[in-house]
């Protein structure tokens, strides 16, 4: 460089920056934190784009909320199907805390999608009031997703896998704010999340009693404020969903509705508000899809420590059992 001071400036600044970053990573690792992939609209869109790639392999869209996202391993699904001689590509499109009907409609409306849909949902999640919960993801995919975003997201995933500094809860401004508010270090997550958008709840890392009690308490508060639709109204709304399913079927695809395992007071409250015989069982008659309730298949009846989600150690077993059930029902 013609100006040695500039060279010095950049060399020293780069060294200080990298040193500071290294020290930051080292410190938080010693405090028991680890890097993790963070979900985003871009990551969802990246996987949604995979769903319309031509077969083979056969595309299998996994829709739902947290129970699917933290209950299935796409890699194990693929391996188990491979053992059966099937070439499938399971794509995790479930979104934590968001019921998935809008995503089902979106796939039905997409003529390029010719795959299978597995949709994890209970009767409450099919109420019209919550249909649009994943609308934001869908709008992002159709309007904002671009080659530029794809490159960015793929690189960002790599960075997030290796750097704690890539976690928004470790942004230095956020840490300063937490310090001023006396909140201390960021919360230690018991939920893991991977680049395939699947995750797991590791209850060994958590106070499971507190989580279970909080979850049940929330549900106890929620149901009195919520009026379930009358069974006939609900069923009538589901006729529209049935038409979406027919569209997927017409293109050679298949749809599976899966009532995932829940337990304890959670399922009691669900049953009080959406009795199976008045809702789910009636749906079987009108829906041109395969209907799977975990209670009908003992291998799927897996313990849910917080009443709503299976533990991370059971994900592989759950996934394998589910693939076996699909095979048994000739979906695969």
């Amino acid at each position, binding site marked *: 460089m013609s*100006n040695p001071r500039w060279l010095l*400036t950049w060399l020293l600044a780069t060294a200080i920056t990298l040193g500071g970053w290294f020290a930051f990573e080292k410190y938080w690792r010693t405090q028991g934190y680890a890097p993790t992939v963070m979900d985003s609209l871009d990551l969802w869109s990246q996987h949604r784009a995979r769903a319309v790639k031509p077969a083979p392999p056969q595309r299998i869209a996994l829709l739902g909320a947290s129970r699917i996202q933290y209950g299935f391993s796409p890699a194990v699904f693929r391996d188990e199907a491979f053992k059966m001689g099937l070439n499938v590509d399971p794509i995790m499109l479930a979104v934590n805390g968001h019921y998935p009907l809008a995503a089902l409609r979106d796939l039905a409306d997409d003529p390029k999608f010719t795959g299978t849909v597995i949709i994890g949902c209970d009767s409450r999640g099919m109420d019209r009031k919550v249909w649009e919960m994943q609308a934001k993801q869908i709008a992002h995919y159709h309007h904002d997703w671009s080659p530029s975003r794809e490159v960015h997201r793929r690189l960002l995933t790599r960075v997030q896998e290796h750097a704690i500094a890539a976690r928004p809860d470790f942004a230095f401004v956020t840490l300063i704010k937490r310090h001023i508010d006396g909140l201390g270090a960021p919360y230690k997550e018991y939920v893991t999340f991977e680049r395939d958008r699947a995750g797991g709840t590791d209850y060994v890392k958590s106070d499971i009693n507190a989580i279970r009690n909080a979850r049940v308490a929330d549900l106890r508060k929620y149901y009195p404020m919520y009026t379930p639709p009358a069974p006939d109204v609900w069923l009538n709304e589901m006729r529209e969903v049935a038409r979406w399913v027919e569209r997927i079927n017409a293109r050679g695809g298949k749809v599976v509705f899966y009532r995932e395992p829940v337990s304890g007071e959670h399922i009691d409250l669900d049953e009080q508000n959406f009795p199976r015989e008045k809702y789910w069982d009636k749906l079987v008659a009108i829906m041109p899809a395969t209907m799977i309730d975990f209670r009908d298949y003992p291998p799927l009846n897996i313990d849910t420590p917080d009443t709503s989600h299976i533990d991370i150690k059971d994900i592989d077993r759950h996934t394998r059992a589910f693939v076996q059930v699909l095979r048994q029902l000739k979906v695969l």
Partner: protein
Amino acid sequence: MTFDSLTFAVFLAIVFPAYVLLRSWNGRKNLLLAASCVFYGSWNPFFLILLAFTTVFDWWAAQRINAATSDATRRRWFWASIIASLSLLGYFKYAQFFANTAIEWLALVGVTYKPIDLGIVLPLGISFYTFESISYIVDVYKKRITPTKNLRDYGLFMTFFPHLVAGPIMRFGDFNAQTTTPRTVTADAVATGAFMLVGGLFLKIVGADQVFAPVSDIVFAPDYKAGFIAAWAGAFSFSMQVYCDFAGYSLAALGIAKMFGFHLPPNFEAPFASVGIAELWTRWHISLSNWLRDYVFNPLGHYRKGRLRGYLNVMITFTACGFWHGAAWHFVVWGAMHGAFLVGERLLKDSIGDWKLWDAKPVRWLLALLTFALFSWAVVYFRAPTIALAWDRTLAMFGFAAQDAATLTWNGEVWVFVVALVVGLAVQAWLKPRKGWDWLPALAWPWRVALLSLMSLAIILSPGKTNAFIYFQF
């Protein structure tokens, strides 16, 4: 791709060395044109066709204007080009707005229509490149410049990626001088340009997204009931956010261009240290205010046709400025407020005259703060999604908040904002007498190291939601 994306880091890591390695100036220009097309097309390849159409049509129209032997023919080509440019802008940016407005107005007289969604996606940067293309045609028509016969050079003027999607709005005359003479890449320019790029990213990623956006997001949430302090905090916060966002983008653009040996005009020069709104508009979005002066205000007659007509011209120009920013009434109100401030300031100056007191330092500081407060009041109409919400915040700012208005909680969020606001304004006061970035090479190297290290580390340690640049929506 945006400057703060990893995609852009890869893009720059490929394009810049390739540019340096190429020896031929034509080869370098070809590379820049191709890279700019990739840069733009990576958002939406379809809109590259639109940009290409505008570019080729206006380049050709300019040739026709220049070659025309009669005034009538010149005029025909001129208007053909202007109408084509404004029609595209009108369709993509304003069609939905006009449809909505028509439906709302018809509803007032009892004719009801269901709202229609035209499903139009706004092509990125259309407002910016349309203005550049109009300025080219006007300048050719007025014989201020000779049109270029080189389509590649004109294409590079339109698409040069540092300024393509959010300015600075370039003039062909300024840019062409740089494309006809080969640019040299010097180590000093690369080092300074890269420093400016880091500075721009720091303003955007740390200032806009991490520090200021959270406060304005709270205060401008539709269901938030803002009290007096909260409303002012939200307004100040958004003023700083939009400054860090847009000045950050512009600074990064200038820095990147500098690395390639190009000079882009500065777009921001310590605007919040301005004394008076008139001065502020010579320091805020400078390339737009110059464009409006040259292609709207002056053709309207400036102040030449009398004082009243001058005031009207100011109002027209700034209302148009608001409408350029966004197809919504709250942007129009924002622009009109600035027009009214400028007229009011002129009236005040004319009636008071040169008073020595105005030059006293403490008074100038107070006036600068008042200018910032006025800007922040107006910016409420820029930020709020509806006029109703902006009006609600205005009432709170002037002491008419709702009874159950929220009091601002002095938590970490607010403390960080307050400290950053004070530092931000102090830095602008320090920068005001310094021209552009000339102070940077003169800064002692240990200070440069400290500044660069702090900014770089702050950027790395500021992951967050990737917020789009605010001016990309225009």
